[in-house]
């Protein structure tokens, strides 16, 4: 059986925790381990609830009716990639945290998005050290599609 097991492939979608999570001793300038996701048409349709929901974000007819050549990805789905980075880094201390962002570029079907963050500032508070981050999402061309801020307490 072990020779068969040796041929087994790893699930590429399996959850993998961040190796380094929020900690009070992390230095300003520390860059978080990035999270990368490809947003396919199928993924957009799962998110929107297609075919029951046919919006410009997942349906060609609806996109055309809105004047778009093809569906563009819902900003709420795009933001989900950042949300994953946020919870992975801050862990349970995402409670008490903040997250904000501006969407600055449209995301197209099959774009590959990478969520990134860097510690910009630290502040001692009564319950711990608060980390202030710049966060953003790049597409596969290196263009920023979202820029924002995050904060949370670090143990």
């Amino acid at each position, binding site marked *: 059986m072990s020779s068969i097991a040796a041929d087994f492939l790893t699930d590429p*979608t*399996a*959850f993998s925790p961040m190796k380094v999570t929020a900690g009070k001793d992390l230095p300003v300038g520390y860059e978080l381990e990035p999270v990368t*996701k490809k947003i396919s048409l199928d*993924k*957009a349709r*799962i*998110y929107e*609830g297609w*075919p*029951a*929901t*046919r*919006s*410009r974000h997942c*349906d060609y*007819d*609806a996109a055309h*009716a*809105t*004047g778009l050549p093809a569906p563009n990805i*819902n*900003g*709420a*789905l795009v*933001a*989900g*990639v*950042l*949300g*994953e980075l*946020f*919870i*992975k880094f801050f*862990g*349970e201390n*995402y*409670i*008490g*945290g*903040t*997250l*904000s*962002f*501006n*969407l600055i570029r449209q995301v197209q079907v099959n774009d590959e998005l990478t969520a990134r963050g860097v510690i910009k500032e630290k502040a001692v508070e009564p319950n711990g050290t608060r980390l202030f981050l710049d966060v953003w999402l790049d597409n596969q061309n290196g263009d920023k599609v979202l820029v924002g801020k995050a904060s949370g307490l670090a143990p």
Partner: protein
Amino acid sequence: MAETRKAEHELFKGTKDLATAEIGDVIGSIEFVVTDDLVNRLSWALDDYNPWYFDGSPLGVRIAPATAPLQFDGTIFYDYYAYPEGGSLFAKQEFEFLRPVQVGETYKLTGTLVDMYKRKGRSFFKMGVSITDPQGVEVMRMAKTVATPVKPVPEAAEEAAG
């Protein structure tokens, strides 16, 4: 039978013209349930299979993905205001995470117009959102800013239009 070939504005029920919007407008509220189906769908869409969503978390409950309430706040905005002819963009979002949003729980999301301004040929509308649990305890605060039109109005035309 699912509806198709609908333009974006036909997906919403809002009737109040954004030109008449005023800060303080009570946009409305909805109740939503964080169902297993919702969590499964969000996780699948993002390939984010954090066990805290499925098995439980150190907070003692199964939590929803951080941005899950974005499924609902856009809907209330354009179920109150008429979807603008020039289209609408999701421009900005803010979150404050006060307490865990739990799988299986029912929440109430209430939106109020808290700011509006014009910039670079577009009008921006900021909706403040409070999410409360069945006991009325606030679990999240959010703010969503939408912008219209999709194609900015040239500044000269904007001034002429007042």
